[in-house]
């Protein structure tokens, strides 16, 4: 194994890491917000909203991300009313298309995860909150959201790792992130194994850090699940 080649490959790949991180952060952010809207529609009393959310989740979870991304990147441009609209300068950019399709896709998966989090809330806690007069936003803010989020966190961290992996597809719509650059290096040098190793190390490290951060967050958010301290902490 050629150490010099590995080092130079690593440098080239690390130069593309900010692009991967930008794709990841933006799509998780927007996808998370969209997922909240979708899950709100999914559990709402309105049949139209509920069916829309069901359809959304079915479509975005049932078809491959790549075809969604191509649909947005190649498909939208063929309509005149989009090409001449104010949105076109944004939708022309591959980066915007990639973030848009990643966010739309992860919203479908995350909405299901959040819904299972909501379902895990004990009914009596909601009843208790209602009986002391909480409703609407206050109930959501104080009872539903915190409990659901804590229940959803383990599954959501898996979804977030999936998103890191999904950013690789952006290279197929000409966004030069780590996998795209790795593919170009493989095609130029034919040293598949070395380039793969370097890229794999980057992704594994990134995923490891994200999982650590998520489990730290989970630990911080669930003090009640930890064992009680052996000696009572003196109260001030």
């Amino acid at each position: 194994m050629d150490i010099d080649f590995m080092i130079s490959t690593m440098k080239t790949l690390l130069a593309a890491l900010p692009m991967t991180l930008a794709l990841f952060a933006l799509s998780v952010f927007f996808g998370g917000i969209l997922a909240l809207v979708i899950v709100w529609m999914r559990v709402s009393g309105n049949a139209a909203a509920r069916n829309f959310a069901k359809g959304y989740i079915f479509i975005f979870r049932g078809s491959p991300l790549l075809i969604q991304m191509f649909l947005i990147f190649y498909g939208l441009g063929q309509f005149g009313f989009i090409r001449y609209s104010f949105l076109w300068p944004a939708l022309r950019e591959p980066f915007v298309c990639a973030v848009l399709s990643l966010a739309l896709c992860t919203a479908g998966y995350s909405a299901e995860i959040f819904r299972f989090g909501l379902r895990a809330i004990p009914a009596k806690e909601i009843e208790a909150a209602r009986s002391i007069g909480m409703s609407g936003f206050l109930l959501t803010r104080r009872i539903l959201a915190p409990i659901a989020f804590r229940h959803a966190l383990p599954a959501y961290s898996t979804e977030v790792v999936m998103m890191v992996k999904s950013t690789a597809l952006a290279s197929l719509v000409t966004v030069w992130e780590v996998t795209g650059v790795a593919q170009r290096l493989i095609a130029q040098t034919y040293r598949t194994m070395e380039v793969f190793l370097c890229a794999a190390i980057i992704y594994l490290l990134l995923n490891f850090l994200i999982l650590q951060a998520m489990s730290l967050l989970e630990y911080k958010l669930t003090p009640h699940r930890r064992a009680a301290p052996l000696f009572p902490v003196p109260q001030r």
Partner: protein
Amino acid sequence: MIGFGPTGWGGLLLVAALMTLCVTAVALLIGAILGSLVAWAKLSGSRILRTIGGTYTTVFRGVPELLIIYLVYFGGSSAVTAIGTAMGYEGFLGLPSFAAGALAVGIISGAYQAEVFRGAYLAIPKGELEAAQAIGMNRSLRFRRIIGPQVFRFAIPGIGNVWQLSLKDSALVSVTGLADLMRTSQVAAGSTRQHFLFFIVGGCLYLILTSFSDRIFTSAEKRANRSMPTSLGQA
């Protein structure tokens, strides 16, 4: 344009959907073999085997699928070329894209299936294994009568999830040029300049594949659990 006949893409798209199914099925089979080996390694007493198994599942679940497909396709091609050169053939030999695709998706699904099998094995009540040992069943008999059937039953929902995942991963195999559903939609879209139409049609065919296979797995689960009491978690 999506009709059948000499100018329609309908027939080609259906053949491509069949190709997607074939790649995924072969990949699932490869993944089942790899997955059971890795699950066995992870459950074994040997520390070396456990480390190997753990590394396999971490790497192939943590690295983008596209990168693994590139590894298998390009790496496999250079390996084949090296073998060809050793046997006296000059020039570049490519790995067939079907084999490369099925192998790559199989390696990925193997990592997920290993976890499914491991979880299913751990779900077997310990008392049953002890009881089997106590009445003198040897290893292979124990596997055949007690472990195998139960692992299979517990694993069906998980395998269903892996199948859905592999079905969607198989779309990435299109980068190697295999004429699967993704690739054919892309070619049709490019040559007719009707991108939106053909990606919608391709996406709908994928939705049909995923929802149809979801039904099959649900009914398989029901059938496998038909002798089980339906009390917990089953609606």
